[in-house]
């Protein structure tokens, strides 16, 4: 039952990101050229609603569906890893025109060359895991 729920949430996410064109390389390029409000509208309205929902979840101390208390942990404090990692991610995001969610979605949509991007992304994650102790965080 729960497994099905995760699959359905993913399916819904896939449809939303595909239909909103957030999974389109062209929209990412357009965003970084500031030629359209579209992507800023998506991220901005997601954030506006997201901030309210997270605030409500924390404030109301609502329990999870399975009855456990919900604690949203803070991100670990640092500067270097976020700015350096973020910049490298941004370079890839703009070139591939896809972040990890859309990569899977585009596999489903049948744009087969995206599988090369996926393989690159797995290799990148692997390389990070191997080098992480040598990197400044």
């Amino acid at each position, binding site marked *: 039952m729960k497994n099905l729920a995760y699959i359905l949430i993913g399916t819904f996410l896939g449809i939303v990101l595909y239909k909103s064109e957030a999974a389109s390389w*062209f929209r990412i390029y357009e965003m970084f050229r500031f030629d359209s409000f579209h992507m800023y509208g998506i991220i901005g309205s997601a954030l506006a609603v997201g901030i309210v929902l997270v605030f409500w979840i924390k404030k109301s101390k609502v329990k999870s569906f399975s009855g456990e208390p919900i604690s949203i942990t803070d991100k670990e404090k640092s500067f270097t890893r976020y700015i350096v990692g973020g910049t490298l*991610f941004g370079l890839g995001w703009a070139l591939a025109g896809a972040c990890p969610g859309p990569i899977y979605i585009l596999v489903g949509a049948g744009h087969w060359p995206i599988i090369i991007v996926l393989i690159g992304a*797995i290799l990148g994650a692997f390389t990070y895991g191997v080098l992480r102790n040598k990197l400044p965080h």
Partner: protein
Amino acid sequence: MLYQPWPWYISGPLIALIMALLILMGKRFGMSSNLETFCSIGGAGKFSDYFKIDIKSKRWNLLVVLGSIIGGFLGAHWLSPNPAVDISPKTIIKLQELGFDSAGKTYLPTELFSLESLSDPKVWVILLIAGFLVGFGTRYAGGCTSGHAISGLSNLQRPSLIAVVGFFIGGLIMVHLLFPLIFGS
């Protein structure tokens, strides 16, 4: 309506809803940690303790990935009779200058994402490097668009703000400084 591109003011709130649903299920919205799980499944634990994780505890997120693949299939094949992305005319002109004649006509540029484009080794190199930067960068930064820009910023996390600033520094450098070098003739 369903078959047209969905407007931002529908799509954005729906993404926030997905994030909230996952929180209420006791999980967190983040797509890039799956890349690590794939490494662990592939035996990367032999190379670094970082990948020695309990794969079972990550199974739910792999199911979200499976779902998103299904969603991509449905979105593309059932819900989008016209896949062309209506980007701004300014963007189209700029892309044509860079050699992307498919701008405004397709969902992804055929110059990079068609089977014919794969006959050019340069395209393989571009896609592989792009993916590598995505995978390396997101794990270094501890999250991607879903984990930082949506989940982290919704929780008003300063680290996520720093990461998102990084996303934009990288994206702007790529599009404005590197694209003319990579794609310009």
